[in-house]
Structure formats: structure tokens, C-alpha cells
């Protein structure tokens, strides 16, 4: 079925796209990269990566519980991810950006995460050894995507991105400068809750493809890379999405021809982008320093 990589790129791509599952994977990859890019960019800016990670980890017991109860894994991912996002948002104090507030919320997030992992282990145990699924929950399965999966994913992406279009500028203000934003009538706390719920929905959707542990490859890495490269808000967001889409598509092709796990290929490419961007920035800074001094 897989003829291997031949250096004839056009026939290679034609081969790859003759499989419906690969076409679905590329479609899903586009939506996932777009969604994860925009939400991830704000998550990195707001220093909420730890919250995002914990929400992702709660997806694992969610999926395990849903499968154990005979429901769809998607339902489990959504229920648990959005539920934990709400718990974190509502129990953390203030905007979660002050020093004391941050310490409080990071302890709270750690509690949620530890409990989630324990729950996941319990549900796996109850179900009685389905190791292949465990691996899919944790590391994802980009190649078994159906057309219905793509449809759900697109719907979630459209809803989340529409909400982001509506609240984008206020959320940026509240993220960078909560005290002044609050004085200008921006409801910083409500925005925090809304953003965490959007993050929960994003993480749930992205988890289905990348697994609970590798969500970060698409949530954090493209955004972190773009923020290293530029401080211009619009350009930074655009770069995040472009890097995310390229990393996902090339990762899928690599996984297909190299018979590797998609989680590994996508993460490696995203990591390589970050390292390159960081190295380029440090190199430039070092070469400029003598002129300044």
C-alpha cells in the first residue's frame, strides 16, 4: 500500500492522497494547526501553559472513562477538558496574573492534574488492559481519522475562532495589562474563564489526534517559535498558524513514508523550528552586540 518515498514528489503526494484516511489527516491537520495556533499563542502570552498541560492530561481519564462506559472517546475528551478548565478558572483567585494569585493557581492546577492521572489509571484498570488504546490516548492517532471526525473538528474550530475574533483585542489587553484593562471596563476575570473554556475545547479536539501528551507540540511550540521571531502582534499570530500547518503537514508526510508515529514526527519538526528560531535570534543578538558596545 505504501510504496515508499521515491524523490518524485508529485507521484509521492498523489500516492499519499489517494488514501481517504491520509486526505482526512491533512484536512484535520489544517484545522488542528489553525485552532491550536491561535489558542496556543494566547496561552503562551498569558503564561498559562501549565494550565493547558493539566487540561490536556485530564483528557486522558476522560477518554478512558467514556470508553469504559461505552460512550465515544470524543465525549470524554470534551467533558473532562472543559470541566477541568472550568474548575481551574473558577477556583483560581482574581485574574490569575498577580504573583500570589499565580502561586495559588499553579498549586490548584497541579492538584487537578495529579487527580486526573490517578483517575485515568483507575478507568484503564477497570476496563482491563487495552494497551493499544492507552497509547492512542497519550500519543494520538492522526491516521485513523474519519470524515465525521473532520466535520466535528471543523465545527469546533469555527466556533472557537469566531469567539476569538469577537474577544481578541480585549483578551490581549486583559492578558498584558490586567489592572489598566479592568479600569477601562474590561471584565478580566470573565475573559479568563472564557479563554480557559476555549482552551479546554481546543485541547480536547487536538488531543484526539495528537494524544494528551503531545498536544503541546501544536499548542506551545509554533506560538513560542513565532514569539521568538517577532514582537509584532499580527505577524506573530500569522507565523504561529503557518508554522503549525507546515509542521503538521510535513509531519504527516514523514510519518506516512517513514512509518513513524505522527506524534513523534510532528513534535520533532516543531521542536526543530523552535531550536532554529532561538539559535538564529541568539546569533543575531551576539553579532549586534559589538556594534552597540
Amino acid at each position, binding site marked *: 500500500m505504501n510504496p515508499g518515498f521515491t524523490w518524485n514528489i508529485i507521484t509521492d503526494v498523489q500516492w499519499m492522497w489517494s488514501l481517504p484516511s491520509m486526505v482526512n489527516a491533512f484536512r484535520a491537520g489544517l484545522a488542528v494547526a489553525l485552532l491550536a495556533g491561535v489558542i496556543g499563542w494566547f496561552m503562551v502570552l498569558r503564561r498559562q501553559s501549565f494550565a493547558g498541560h493539566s487540561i490536556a492530561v485530564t483528557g486522558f481519564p476522560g477518554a478512558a472513562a467514556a470508553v469504559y462506559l461505552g460512550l465515544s472517546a470524543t465525549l470524554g475528551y470534551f467533558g473532562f477538558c472543559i470541566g477541568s478548565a472550568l474548575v481551574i478558572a473558577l477556583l483560581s483567585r482574581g485574574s490569575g496574573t498577580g504573583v500570589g494569585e499565580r502561586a495559588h493557581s499553579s498549586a490548584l492546577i497541579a492538584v487537578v492534574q495529579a487527580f486526573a492521572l490517578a483517575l485515568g489509571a483507575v478507568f484503564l484498570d477497570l476496563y482491563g488492559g487495552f494497551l493499544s488504546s492507552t497509547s492512542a490516548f497519550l500519543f494520538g492517532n492522526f491516521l485513523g481519522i474519519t470524515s465525521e471526525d473532520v466535520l466535528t473538528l471543523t465545527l469546533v474550530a469555527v466556533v472557537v475562532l469566531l469567539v476569538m475574533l469577537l474577544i481578541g483585542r480585549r483578551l490581549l489587553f486583559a492578558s498584558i495589562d490586567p489592572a*489598566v*484593562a479592568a*479600569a477601562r471596563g474590561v471584565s478580566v476575570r470573565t475573559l479568563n474563564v472564557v479563554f480557559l473554556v476555549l482552551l479546554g475545547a481546543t485541547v480536547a479536539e487536538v488531543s484526539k489526534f495528537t494524544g494528551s501528551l503531545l498536544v503541546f507540540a501544536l499548542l506551545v511550540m509554533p506560538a513560542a517559535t513565532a514569539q521568538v521571531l517577532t*514582537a509584532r*502582534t499580527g505577524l506573530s499570530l500569522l507565523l504561529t498558524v503557518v508554522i503549525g500547518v507546515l509542521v503538521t503537514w510535513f509531519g504527516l508526510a514523514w510519518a506516512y513514508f517513514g512509518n513513524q508515529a505522527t506524534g513523534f514526527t510532528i513534535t520533532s519538526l516543531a521542536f526543530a523550528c523552535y531550536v532554529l528560531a532561538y539559535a538564529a535570534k541568539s546569533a543575531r543578538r551576539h553579532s549586534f552586540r559589538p556594534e552597540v558596545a
Partner: protein
Amino acid sequence: MMIDDSDAPVITLHDAAVSLGGRRLWSGVDLTVHPGEFVAVLGPNGVGKSTMIKVLLGTLPVAAGSVSVLGHRPGAAGEQIGYLPQRRNFDASLRIRGEDVVRLGLDGDRWGVPLPFARRFSAARQAADARVREVIELVGASGYAHRPIGECSGGEQQRLLIAQALVRRPRLLLLDEPLDSLDLPNQAGIAALIHRICREADVAVVMVAHDVNPILSYLDRVVYIVGGGAASGPATEVITTETLTRLYGTPVEVLRAVDGRLVVVGGPEAPALHSDRHDHHGDRHEALR
């Protein structure tokens, strides 16, 4: 032509008092601030100086007396107030340009997102860009406004934040310890800048300060708050041995150095005496933020 209310007071406090958690922080404050006047709120750490700003913003009600800001009750004229909260510095890794932070002061409370390429065809967008450039020029930040704000020095960040507070042409500027954590040359520079804005743009300025000296020569009036009580008037009348001794209820001496700087001796600035007299004020103050 002058508008009718252009000389009307920007702020009027009459016998105002504030309580927090059942405890009277300050009381008996009478204060009138006109356009273009520079007023400082002084006092030792932890007496609730920042609550004065909160009262003027309308986020904290007065327990007694009356307050009027720009002819309305506090909080009703938010559009015309520029506010600079007590600062933390921006995280060094925050990758957002200074000019974008200033820009958020102009339109950050609007829904939606800015359209890409709108500046080519939208006059409103061009006017907004021009206003941001103008206010950055005014505070002398043009040289570094394009850099990520986390990479700017404390003084540079403070100038950008003042630009952010000014960008909507407010009639009143509320500044909470803007000179805190700056070195002496930067303190002098920012103080002179605030004074210039105050006079040239006819903006009334109320500034909370721990040390009066960097701004002493610019001040029109001060409010001096000490645990429970307060006094207001011209600096030369309030920061005196007699007034402060009465306020603190313990002998305090105000000395004038040869360069005109004021030194308060005998207690208020000495941390040990201060904490002995006002238990838990620090804790209370934390709770306010």
C-alpha cells in the same frame, strides 16, 4: 474660547473618609483639584494612599463625606481618566511592542480584532495611528517604542505606560507610585515629564508617592495621610513639623536641606516605629490590591 466648565474643579472631596474591613483608613479630607494642577498623595507605606486612587476611580466607595470627579460621581467619567496602576515591571520575555501596549490604551476595550491592512483605507485607523505616534513622541519614547516592552528599562517602560494613560486625552491622570523602583535620574526625568504634561495639556494629575522630593518643586497641593487622619493643602503648609506632629501624634521634625529637599525625621519613615504604631497595615494594604 473657553468652554464653560473648563475651570470647574476636576476633583472635589469634602470631608471624605474611607473604611476598609471596618477600619477607618483616613478621614476628614477636603481637596479641590483644578485643570492643570499637580497634586500628590503622601504618607508612610501601608496607610492606604492607593485607596485615594480607588475612590477617584469609583472602585471603592467613601464611608463619609462627598466626592465628585469631573462633575459626576466617581466611576461615571471613566473615559476621561488616565490611570497608571502601581507597577510591576513587564516580564523580560514578553514579546509585545511598546507601541502596541500604548495602542491598547486607545482601543483595547473594544470588541473584535483590528483588520489587517485597514490602515490603507480607513481614516479612523490612520487617525488612531497618528495619535499613538504623537503621544509616544510627547513622552520621548519614539526611540524604543518599536522594541518588545519586556526589553525596555524600567524608566522606558514607565514612559510608555504614561503614554498609554494619556493616549485618550484624559482630563485627569491618576498615577500610583510611578517613580517607585526607578533610579534617581529616571525619577527626576519622569517627574519633569508629568509636570510638563500637566501644564501643557491642562491635565489634572493626582499622584501617589512615597517620597515627595523628586516632585516637590512641581506640586500645587498635597494630601498627607497617616493612619486614620489626613491633612491637605500646599506642600509648604502640610509638610511641616507642626502638621506632621499633629497627624502622627508623636514628635516629628521636618528639616529642609540646603538644596531645598525635605527630610522628615523622628518616626514616619523609620520602619520599626512605623510597624509598632500601625500593626498589620502592610497586610491590609496587600488585601486592597
